């Protein structure tokens, strides 16, 4: 569902550019709104969320899609935790559909998906592992790297049970916005994948904007 935001970039309290292949790991406070902006288009933003006060509570793809009764995420979707609480609610979305089944790329899964020789290409899960190592204050490790959201990614599911990775439906300037229902650690990998159309074979930056509650 396409829903525009009324928030103005000039009013944001924090703005960060995340280069292609890099990560973002910051706390968004309860009541704040986070926008992920696809600056150049067709960029996958692989994202995990944790309760900042107890990171063993984290985003759960299964709970989120089951409770909303739909596999795609868009405006109105409540991003639920493994405890069934709302971490974030998507409040605006100019893309229309986001994936939470496809997961994140990893060097190991690249060997399976593409070729054993691709194993040393940069991947999202490496970015996350670096993020948790460089941010020990959050107390996270590999066991916390779970099943994520792929903002701006299009992974259609069919009635017959098929699933495909298709060219992104995002474009330059498209965004998704979400309001934090609790203090949330946002861990994003700006996807470095070069082997499939999720980034149009050309990873580009995203911008993270945060607004205080009005």
């Amino acid at each position, binding site marked *: 569902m396409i829903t525009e935001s009324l928030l103005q970039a000039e009013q944001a309290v924090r703005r960060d550019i995340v280069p292609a292949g890099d990560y973002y790991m910051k706390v968004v406070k309860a009541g704040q709104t986070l926008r992920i902006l696809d600056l150049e288009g067709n960029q996958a933003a692989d994202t995990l969320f944790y309760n900042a006060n107890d990171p063993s509570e984290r985003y759960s793809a299964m709970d989120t899609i089951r409770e909303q*009764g739909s596999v795609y995420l868009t405006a109105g979707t409540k991003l639920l935790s493994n405890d069934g609480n709302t971490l974030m609610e998507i409040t605006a979305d100019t893309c229309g559909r986001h994936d939470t089944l*496809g997961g994140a790329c*990893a060097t190991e*899964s690249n*060997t*399976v998906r593409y070729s054993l020789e691709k194993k040393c290409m940069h991947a999202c899960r490496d970015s996350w592992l670096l993020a948790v190592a460089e941010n020990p204050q959050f107390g996270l490790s590999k066991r916390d790297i779970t099943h994520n959201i792929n903002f701006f990614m299009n992974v259609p599911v069919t*009635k017959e*049970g098929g*699933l495909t990775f298709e060219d992104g439906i995002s474009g330059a300037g498209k965004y998704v916005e979400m309001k934090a229902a609790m203090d949330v650690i946002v861990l994003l990998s700006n996807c470095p994948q070069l082997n499939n159309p999720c980034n149009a074979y050309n990873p580009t930056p995203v911008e993270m904007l945060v607004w205080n509650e009005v």
Partner: protein
Amino acid sequence: MQHNSSSPSRIENAIYEEHIPGASHWSLVVPAGHLLTVTDLEGGANASMLFYNPTNLLERYNAPDTLKGQHTFKLTQGHCLYSDMGRIFCSIVSDDTGWVDSVGGVANKQKVQDKWGTRDYQHDHNNWLQNGYDSLLVEVAKYGLGKRDLAANINIFSKVVSDDQGDLTFVESHSKAGDSVGLRFEMDTLVIISTCPHPMNPSNEYPNLPVQLSLSKAAPVEIDDQCANLCGENTRGFENNRRYQCQHGHTHTVGA
């Protein structure tokens, strides 16, 4: 507790068979080259399962890698279940039901209470309304794992379909009495199982339904094996296992 089902067909050369009641949990390490057959004894059962590498518990079943690698939303005969390390825990070598749920997850205590009532051990004893989340949590704790380690599970005997808009529907009466799913293990695997009901099951009564587990030696993986040849991804997955197994002295690989 009484079960009136007829005896399921016995698995040839079973090393052992065991009965797991409904609303229960159990675990076992299945060695590479063994077949675990799970049978729905009465029809309508659910078996939520998770998989870990017993020698490196950080390696665990990864739903997204399993689904995207095989371009599938459903899991059934021919598919492999992958770890997050690019290896195959097990291959689904048979599936009488034609569909294993990949996304429904498990119900927690609150969800079971909302659907079927309060969990009350004093009154109900082991017929209590146990929930799948607590059930898996208790079982993984036996291996030093906890809430942070509970990844997305599969639900054998359950079917959840998505329409073109992405809307999900639980398909009732999917599994019949006697239906079984055969998992052939391609590496040593810690298998965690809960028989608590599927969270989307609309039944008015809490479905308390047992399964049977049967462990046997698997037939060798032939060169034309359905799972290993389903797609190029699986061929490469089996090659990753072959490279891993040689570190561990196993010979359970394609054509071995």
